[in-house]
């Protein structure tokens, strides 16, 4: 009789214990469990790992990936994928370098980086939404376009950027939080508020969860798509600034590791690859996990060649686990 009416029983203590035993619980918390587990392993293997200095450098090293991951999360939550994110960042880096070499100030150079990356983002969004081409193909195309443009514009040569302000920015901070990490954290907090406290965020989840249902309620899913790719582009520009500040130069490098790691962090963070379900906190923990992995392997003097291998294994394990998500 109560097939319709009965509400699900509330979780009690016993229910929670049962949760811990289910593989779904592990799958949903894969990133944070992995982060804690890896930290324990590296702490026991290396005396340096759990020092303030090393934690500080991990957080700074993670900041670029966190910013890119936030953009990637918006796109994947809307049931898309942005393969161009790292190439877009590289184009932003080159735009920064060219503006700076022309004698523009830091602020103008930063704006140039964000503007160049945003153009690629908007292009992605318009092609996906209005051109009705699959996200995968569009962003694979713009990946090539952006990295090609970066090479053409820079003539394949790096431009060194010697700015006291930039060096001060990337080497200072508050307590153990370096400035680049503070920027990344601010981006993450704003992203969380936008996702969970605004109409746009709800509409993004609806678009990713069920495009038809979203459209039936009058939501313009095309506008949402353009918006998420634009956000991803703008954040790639922010990441470009952080990268220039860290490297002290504008290089037309491929940066493919950033692309793979941004997707990997989102998967690790429990975001559904078909959209509509996930958070910002999860992918950030995913990004931290990947950075800790690299950092720990370096501390243990494992050859750099093993790092992509380790990242790949972790990501595939996470994807396998995510199949068990509720």
């Amino acid at each position, binding site marked *: 009789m109560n097939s*319709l*009416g009965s509400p699900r029983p509330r979780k009690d203590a016993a229910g929670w214990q049962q949760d811990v035993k289910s593989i779904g619980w592990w799958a949903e918390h894969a990133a944070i469990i992995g982060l804690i587990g890896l930290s324990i392993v590296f702490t026991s293997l290396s005396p340096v790992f759990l020092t303030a200095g090393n934690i500080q450098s991990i957080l700074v090293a993670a900041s670029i990936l966190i910013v890119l991951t936030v953009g990637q999360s918006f796109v994947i939550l809307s049931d898309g994928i942005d393969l161009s994110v790292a190439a877009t960042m590289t184009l932003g880096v080159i735009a920064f370098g060219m503006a700076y070499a022309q004698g523009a100030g830091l602020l103008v150079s930063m704006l140039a980086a964000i503007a160049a990356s945003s153009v690629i983002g908007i292009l992605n969004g318009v092609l996906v939404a209005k051109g009705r081409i699959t996200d995968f193909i569009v962003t694979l195309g713009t990946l090539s376009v952006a990295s090609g443009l970066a090479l053409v514009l820079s003539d394949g040569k790096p431009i060194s950027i010697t700015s006291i302000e930039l060096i001060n920015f990337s080497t200072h901070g508050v307590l153990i939080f370096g400035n680049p990490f503070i920027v990344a954290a601010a981006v993450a907090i704003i992203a969380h508020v936008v996702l969970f406290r605004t*109409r746009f965020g*709800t509409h993004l*989840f609806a678009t990713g*969860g069920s495009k038809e249902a979203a459209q039936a309620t009058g*939501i313009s899913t095309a506008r949402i798509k353009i918006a998420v790719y634009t956000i991803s582009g703008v954040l790639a520009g922010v990441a470009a600034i952080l990268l220039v500040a860290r490297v002290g130069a504008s290089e037309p490098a491929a940066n493919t590791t950033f692309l793979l790691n941004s997707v990997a962090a989102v998967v690790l963070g429990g975001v559904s690859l078909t959209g509509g*379900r996930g958070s910002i906190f999860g992918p950030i923990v995913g990004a931290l996990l990947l950075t800790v992995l690299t950092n720990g392997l370096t501390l243990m003097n494992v050859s750099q060649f093993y790092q992509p291998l380790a990242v790949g294994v972790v990501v595939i394990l996470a994807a396998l686990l995510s199949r068990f998500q509720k």
Partner: protein
Amino acid sequence: MTTTATTSIVDVQDVSLAFGSVKALQDVSLTLAAGEITALVGDNGAGKSTLVRCISGIHKPQSGTISFEGKPVHFRSPEDAREAGIETVHQNLALVDDLTVWQNLFLNREITRGIGPIRFLDRKAMKEAADRMVSNLAVNVPAVKSKVRRLSGGQRQAVSICRAAGFSSKLVIMDEPTAALGVQETAKVEALILKLRDDGHSVLLISHNFSQVMRLSDQVWVMRAGRCVAGRRTIETTGDEIVSLITGSREK
């Protein structure tokens, strides 16, 4: 044809619509009385859905007029129709699984607060209003904080109907509202439809289920091959007569 004594909420006059050479609707005229459940029946491809899409603003008739509450209307989009007070419950249960009941109820009608263009969701207000909407309907709607994914087919349909009935809608269009449901759930959703009428909503019901049409409706319109071929007061007709009108073995 039998005319109704009550005032009409929707008046369709000589509406035609063709897709290329396919005449989907030909000079269709019918009325929906205010405060009644009107059923629209007909075989697949008879034009029921096309007509409903004209009323709900998805299609534009090529000729003829549609009046809503006595005034001719020209909806350019489903939003126009929704603003006028016409809500549609979709056949494919158009809810977002990974959002909660209250988020679905308020989807694209979110309550926000803030200053100027900077606006944030007023989640508390929406949850409270959703609770009220759900308890007003009284029929078997689950806790508003649960995700729609966890609901049964009947519960989902209840949420869909709740969404359509809320927001002071005047006409609720239902396209096969019980097609995907089991026997018990169908009975509960039917009770919900009757309650909608008792609360003063007009209902347009598309159904293939003749016994359901006979149980729920006050007026039946029959469509065949793009034309509205007959209208009957439900109380004055029988399921057999409706079937013969649909198949064309009996005219008018």
